[in-house]
């Protein structure tokens, strides 16, 4: 089973408290915040590795990011992926989810061609984290699937591959009415939520092995996409001004005695009528 996992390097979500908006430029200042693999994408990678170990095959990782993000792909290889692809070009910059997913879909097709030019798609499954910690739109998995003409399902909390003959997956997802089990025909795109598993830690052996695994970097000279369809120019949404919401409240101290604090809380509740 060939599995492709999309990952995104993002500024470390643990440090979003440090983000500020520059008063003059109105841009977000993110200096000093290190990049990490988007948390949910690590869950996607873990799920891909587990499925490969169960069913055989290879795990490919793909990211669209600046070239300095190379080390995040090496991290993915150290976790257990077999091959990595980084698509990187200034022309991809400023892309919204529409233009980003367009590039990802083009890269997936090109990787697939390299594996098996006879097949429409050489992957049985494309995995991704449900949403990125920074933009958090949760659009990219579904949109990548649409560009590829594949079925998709997001927010999956459990995944099982069917028998080889079936070429289908069973995916569990919380829906409005309760919990639903979906059958999704492969190839398909599945976006996983962080509940699905606990991503493995990287060990020294993984790091040594990662250095010998193939990592390919492509620019738009390789993908050859029309400049009008990528980056800011290819994005139907355009960003405007940023604001930081002011959520400050009075912060009255209820004291350091649990008994007295609980009494106060009960009083506040009664006064509010609940």
């Amino acid at each position, binding site marked *: 089973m060939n599995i492709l996992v999309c990952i995104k390097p993002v*500024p470390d979500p643990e440090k979003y408290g440090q983000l500020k908006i520059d008063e003059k430029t109105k841009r977000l200042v993110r200096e000093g915040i290190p990049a990490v693999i988007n948390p949910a994408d690590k869950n996607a990678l873990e799920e891909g590795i587990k499925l490969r170990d169960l069913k055989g095959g290879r795990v490919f990782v793909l990211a669209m990011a600046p070239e300095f993000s190379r080390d995040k792909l090496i991290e993915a290889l150290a976790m257990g992926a077999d091959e990595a692809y980084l698509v990187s070009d200034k022309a991809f910059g400023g892309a919204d989810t529409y233009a980003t997913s367009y590039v990802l879909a083009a890269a997936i097709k090109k990787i697939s061609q390299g594996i098996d030019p006879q097949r429409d798609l050489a992957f049985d499954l494309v995995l991704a984290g449900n949403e990125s910690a920074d933009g958090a739109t949760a*659009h990219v998995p579904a949109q990548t699937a649409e560009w590829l003409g594949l079925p*998709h399902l997001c927010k999956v*909390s459990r995944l099982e591959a069917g028998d080889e003959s079936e070429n289908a997956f069973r995916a569990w997802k919380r829906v409005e009415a309760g919990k639903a*089990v979906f059958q999704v025909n492969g190839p398909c795109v599945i976006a996983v939520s962080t509940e699905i598993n606990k991503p493995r830690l990287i060990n020294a052996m993984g790091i040594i092995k990662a250095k010998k695994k193939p990592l390919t970097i492509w620019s738009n000279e390789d993908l050859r996409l029309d400049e009008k369809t990528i980056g800011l120019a290819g994005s139907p949404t355009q960003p405007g001004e*940023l604001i930081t919401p002011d959520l400050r409240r009075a912060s009255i101290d209820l004291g350091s005695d649990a008994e007295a604090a609980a009494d106060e809380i009960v009083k506040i509740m009664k006064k*509010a009528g*609940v």
Partner: protein
Amino acid sequence: MKKSEIKKVMVYDQGLAGQPHPSFWQNMAKLQRLLQGEQVEFVRLCCHCENPQQAVLSIEQVIKAESPDLLVIAATPLGEEVAPALGVRLKTGVAAHCADIVINGEDRIAYMVPAFGGKVIGEIFIPGSRPAIATVKPGVFSYDKKDAADYREILCDCISEDSCGLRIVETEEIAQQQSAIEKAELIFCGGFGIGSKESWQKLEALAKKTGGGAGCTRPVVDMDWGPDEYYMIGTSGKTVRPKVYIGFGISGAAHHLCGIKDADIIISINNDKNAEVFAASDYKAVLDANQVIDRLAEKL
């Protein structure tokens, strides 16, 4: 898009024909308030397909035929799958999880979208393509029945599930949840600091006893202490507006604060005196969350 260019506004509703989803009223009322006095036609597109692929294929044709200027979709588990798919199919932009929809100083419609876990909110414009799609989490807009004005209703003919590569094979209904937290007037919310499954159960018991709701933050879901994402409050979970919200062991990440900012009273208990949640609270106590949970259980 300038306000004056908006001629047709569509709200997609996954509810049944005679039984709109609560979020439909919220979104429709908000749009009608926003565009009051303008010559705008409002349309309810009703499609009750629960299979997201079937829903996309069914409503795509209707949207193409109607060509609305704005299309608003509730960010339910279904809507979150449908909206981005429609974006690609209709070659248009989608603004995710809007915290607000406004007409800005230049008379342009702006979708206000949180990023970096709600730390910032940015304007998103969709200038060149139609419809300009937005998703809105249920509960973001309040609804008072008085707001509801006229709209035209379109009942969608659902295509057969046979043409879908995706099928629902089993649905396990969840028995009457005590935690309809969007509607609760009192919420007990647990964060990483509650520390265990037992503590989550205590919060649920408190909620049950008082007729309130129990909610949580992301770590509680990921630690497997009981609740699933359905109980999660924040930008990627629910937006709540209770009279009283009591948070236990919550650090105060921006994405959670975004989901509780409309609460009348926010009370926070955390043993970390530097917890960010305190600044955003009306009342605070630097105490062990579990001690206060136990005291409250005795008193309520």
